[in-house]
């Protein structure tokens, strides 16, 4: 009984920490790194993402205005970023390098400069 109370305390403390630092990378379930990214005309924030090879990551996207996309062909990942909903993309980077990503849903006059990079290190 005492152990269950202790576990509940630990979970609540972890949840509070995640809520307290919403824009920072955090560890989700089963040690998955979580990175929150906002998308709006015509930028991502952050637009430079650093990851470790072999380390599972979950990218959580929020659109602040309209439909955007996130495509990183070098890592073989993409997702639609729809406003008003959570858009989660979980993957394990399997190679080292710097890989450009871009918005692949046409979003307006600055669409072509809506880009960023993912850098994966050992």
């Amino acid at each position, binding site marked *: 009984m005492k152990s269950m109370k202790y576990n509940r305390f630990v979970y609540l403390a972890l949840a509070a920490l995640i809520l307290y630092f919403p824009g920072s990378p955090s560890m989700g379930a089963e040690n998955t790194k979580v990175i929150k990214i906002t998308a709006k005309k015509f930028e991502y924030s952050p637009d430079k993402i650093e990851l470790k090879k072999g380390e599972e990551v979950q990218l959580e996207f929020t659109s602040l205005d309209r439909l955007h996309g996130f495509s990183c*062909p070098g890592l073989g990942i993409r997702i639609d970023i729809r406003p008003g909903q959570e858009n989660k993309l979980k993957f394990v980077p399997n190679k080292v390098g710097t890989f450009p990503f871009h918005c692949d849903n046409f979003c307006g006059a600055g669409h072509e400069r809506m880009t960023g990079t993912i850098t994966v290190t050992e």
Partner: protein
Amino acid sequence: MKIDRRDFLTLAGLGGVVVVSGFGGGSTVSASAAENDFFFVQFSDTHWGFADPAINQDSMGTLRKAVEAVNSLKVQPDFIVFTGDLSHVTDDDNERRKRLSEFRNIVSQLKLKNLRFLPGEHDAGLDEGKAYKEYFGETYYTFDHKGVHFIVLDNVSDPTSNIGEVQLKWLSADLKKRNRNSRIVVFTHRPLYELYPDWDWYTRDGSKAIDLLSNYSKVAVFHGHVHQELHRNAGHISYHAAKGLMYAFPPPGSVPKKTQIPWDAKQPYKGLGFRSVNAKSRQADYPISEYSVQGEKL
């Protein structure tokens, strides 16, 4: 050198037959076959409404110069196709219509009235082609000309750059009416294949269209979007990307980030132009000639 008749057809009459030069060194074919030889002109990525003197110091005059160049041809093409991005993108619906209207007024100065249009994402990606259709009609269609079946595909009105199941079904039904050796030319804005995905140079479901077209032995695809001349052969299909008429892009992957090539005062209009495409009834491929904005053969 200006375009003239020699650039697309060289015929020497011999009674009831003609000798077609460039056809295996000269072959005797029937007069009716030669009569079906023709050429068309491809304009692409005119981006009317774009304004940045660092990129194009003659953004209001470039398209007009190309129109004058085609008007000066001694022999007019059978038709001119505009492979998308007629106008430059704007978030303002009224401004989009203004740009499309101005573009239409300029190309109405062409002597030739057989004009074929298709949209680019700059024209149709923000309103699913609504304004474009008001000025230019349907975004996908077919037409036949002198033994060639032309298919215009729309891979831009859906902002996710999908052709979509409805259009793919329509394409499949159209192709089923052809035989395997039919001469088929496809016009698209974006490349159907993965030309360079890091720069968004592909069509998300393009492979589905390619699968359908791969059942036919004589298929050529002419497209825009990449603002430079590129050619590729894959299977039975040849792909030909066209230069733009407002700004050029660097070769895929040659720079870290895709950016428009700045205007070079020493070489104005460099990287811009249009092309003529020969279609000969007894020749499977389509010889292409590239021209500068002013109509100089390159």
